[in-house]
């Protein structure tokens, strides 16, 4: 069991957890992830590690409610426990002094981009961060990211905060202004990463994306997380999760991530129905039923 030492909502549906996991905390590097399982009936889902503290033996994760598992996870609080947490998995981000790096975070992807941005800054890069969210409430880690960035730009889809528009608008501005960009790191929803990769391909700017396929073991054993890179199968759990955005076949990723859509919807509906039932009868014993869905 892995104890939750601290849990707080950063935004509606987005929660940050600090979890006691000394072995993982000692080894974690930016870009790596954990796989967790909430209870005996639970599925295994990958979540990127947002930070770690080797001395305290803790890791932080940021979770957005999407399906059953992430919703159940986000209903946990300080003092609760997670049954299984394994990691750190995946290859760490490549950190060196590239020059000027644009770090782009879309939605909860911002939490995954943050540790890499911080490491890139420490490695001597000029870091320009671009954060996008649907609305003001969903902008997360602004202060943290500002601390490690030479410049921080924020966009909201609806214009309720900072500039209305998408992160790609800001990237286009940078390119059009003639800003020298040595590397782009884009982490967020697939359409965002795909749009960024398309834009930088023309400019021949090296672009790294972090992929979130469906995973089970996370050690290369099952092959479920295979993604098409340059027309060949690679495993996101051991060859990634970060890949050259210009070589990734995003449509295969979208297609494979939709494989269990119907089952995911059923799980979520059952979960919501049960939750309604429980909310209506708060004295009833806590449910042991588990959750499904989401992912990173």
């Amino acid at each position: 069991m892995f104890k939750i030492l601290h849990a707080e909502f950063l935004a509606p549906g987005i929660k940050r957890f600090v979890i006691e996991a000394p072995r993982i905390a000692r080894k974690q590097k930016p870009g790596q992830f954990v796989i967790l399982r909430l209870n005996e009936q639970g599925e295994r889902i990958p979540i990127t590690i947002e930070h770690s503290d080797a001395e305290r033996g803790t890791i932080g994760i940021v979770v957005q409610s999407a399906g059953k598992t992430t919703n159940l996870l986000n209903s946990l609080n300080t003092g609760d426990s997670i049954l299984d947490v394994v990691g750190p998995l995946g290859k760490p981000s490549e950190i060196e002094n590239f020059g000027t790096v644009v770090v782009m975070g879309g939605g909860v992807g911002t939490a995954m981009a943050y540790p890499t941005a911080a490491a890139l800054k420490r490695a001597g890069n000029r870091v320009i961060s671009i954060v996008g969210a649907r609305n003001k409430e969903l902008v997360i880690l602004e202060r943290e990211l500002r601390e490690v960035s030479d410049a921080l730009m924020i966009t909201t889809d609806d214009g309720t905060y900072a500039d209305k528009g998408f992160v790609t608008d800001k990237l286009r501005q940078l390119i059009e202004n003639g800003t020298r960009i040595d590397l782009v790191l884009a982490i967020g929803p697939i359409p965002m990463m795909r749009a960024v990769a398309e834009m930088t391909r023309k400019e021949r700017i090296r672009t790294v994306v972090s992929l979130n396929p469906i995973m089970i073991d996370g050690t290369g054993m099952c092959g479920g997380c295979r993604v098409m890179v340059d027309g060949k199968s690679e495993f996101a759990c051991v060859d990634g999760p970060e890949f050259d955005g210009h070589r990734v076949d995003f449509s295969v990723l979208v297609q494979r991530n939709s494989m269990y859509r119907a089952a995911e919807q059923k799980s979520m509906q059952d979960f919501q129905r049960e939750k309604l039932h429980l909310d209506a009868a708060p004295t009833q014993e806590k449910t042991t039923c588990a959750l499904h869905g989401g992912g990173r």
Partner: protein
Amino acid sequence: MRPARRWPVTQPTKSSLLNVLPLKQRMKIPRQHMLEQCAEQRAHNFTEVNLGYSEELARQEALRCLDCAKPACTNDCPVGVKVKDFVALIVAGDYLGAAAKIREDNVLPAITGRVCPQEDHCEGGCLMGKKVQPLGIGYLERFVADYEQRHLDISNLPKAAPTGKKVAIVGSGPSGLTAAGDLVQKGHQVHVFEALHTPGGVLVYGIPEFRLPKQIIREQIDYMRAMGVEFETNVVVGRTVTIDELMNEEGYDAVFIGTGAGLPQFMGIPGEHLNGVYSANEFLTRINLMHAYEFPKYDAPIVDFLGKNVAVIGGGNTALDSIRSALRLGAGKAFVLYRRSEAEMPARKEEVKHAQQEGIEFQVLTAPIEFLDDGKGWLAGARCQKMALGEPDASGRHRPVPIEGSEYEIPLSVAVIAIGTSANPIVQSTTPGLNTSKRNYIQADATTQRTSRKGVFAGGDIVTGSATVILAMGAGRRAAKSIDDYLTSGEW
């Protein structure tokens, strides 16, 4: 429940004194069939196919043993189980004694009794088999192991005097468990690291409930815990902690690497990324480890199999485990596509027989060359090619040669690829000085299981490539002996 017995049993059994039946009469007893679920029924459930021997059947079968002076059974067993001795104890009605006798050489009898390819080992050389049918050694082993589980109190197993030495076992599959069991009996402190959330390795994620119930694995592991073995799940050695950290920082005097054959192989044909195409490892892991067949009670899903055409590609035990699981998920038609002929199939004979009884169709000398898209990213079928058998290859089996112009298509909704695995690189890439083969398997001495790193041993599929449970156990056994020698002598 009987009290814990002193263990291991040391006094030799005079097996010849226990079976008084004349040899000629022993030959006249037919091999006793194990009760099993009927094919129509079991094809729709995940409950174990074989139901076991009763005491009467077991003793009747045990009476058939010829008590050979030079028993081929023990000789051909990778862990050297003293077959005729334990069989004689069954004749005498001392089932716990029989179990203890097996445990002197095999710490997982309930598992090997179920999944060992006995025809290739103990039963293969059985003298009875030359004349009539071989002794049902696997069945008898299973019987005594199950009897032991029901009747032996393991709360107070005797423990060897501690040596003060610590051994880390990386991976809790057959080789790791065997090494752990042997080493703890020598008094070493044994700590097993498992990457997944449940110990057992391939026994848990790879072998389905209907062939090896999870409860059996749990019981065998509980027994090992009772012996003093410690288990730590959720540790990916190489990622969570390295071999060097285990030895230098956590004080382990020796490490055994038994991480198994890791990465699933794909065929490299068009369409393998389509939804509905699984590696056998993923498919079986979803079913076995994640209980996807019990969705939505369990969260992990599996695609819909009801009434669908499903094919497995491959002819090993993994292939048969996959296709028989697919049948139990409700597949309408279930095919095995195998590129050689049935004679070359590496699967256990009993599994092939069971699969055929259950209605699985074998299309041999057949290989898919393309998976077809339904236009929406889902599998619609496979284009296959017929094969002819050519000259024998390095494995001694006839090489399949494609027949030009023999292509045909079969409609399929799900395909499971079970053509083997390659080495998982995580441990090798994080352990400096650990020599590997050209194909990145860990190099270890065939007798001592020593690697190129002092104090580090390896065995099982991560050394040999995909093999069987019992061969991995044999490697674990040799490694344990050699680790004990090293820890005792300090000499490398």
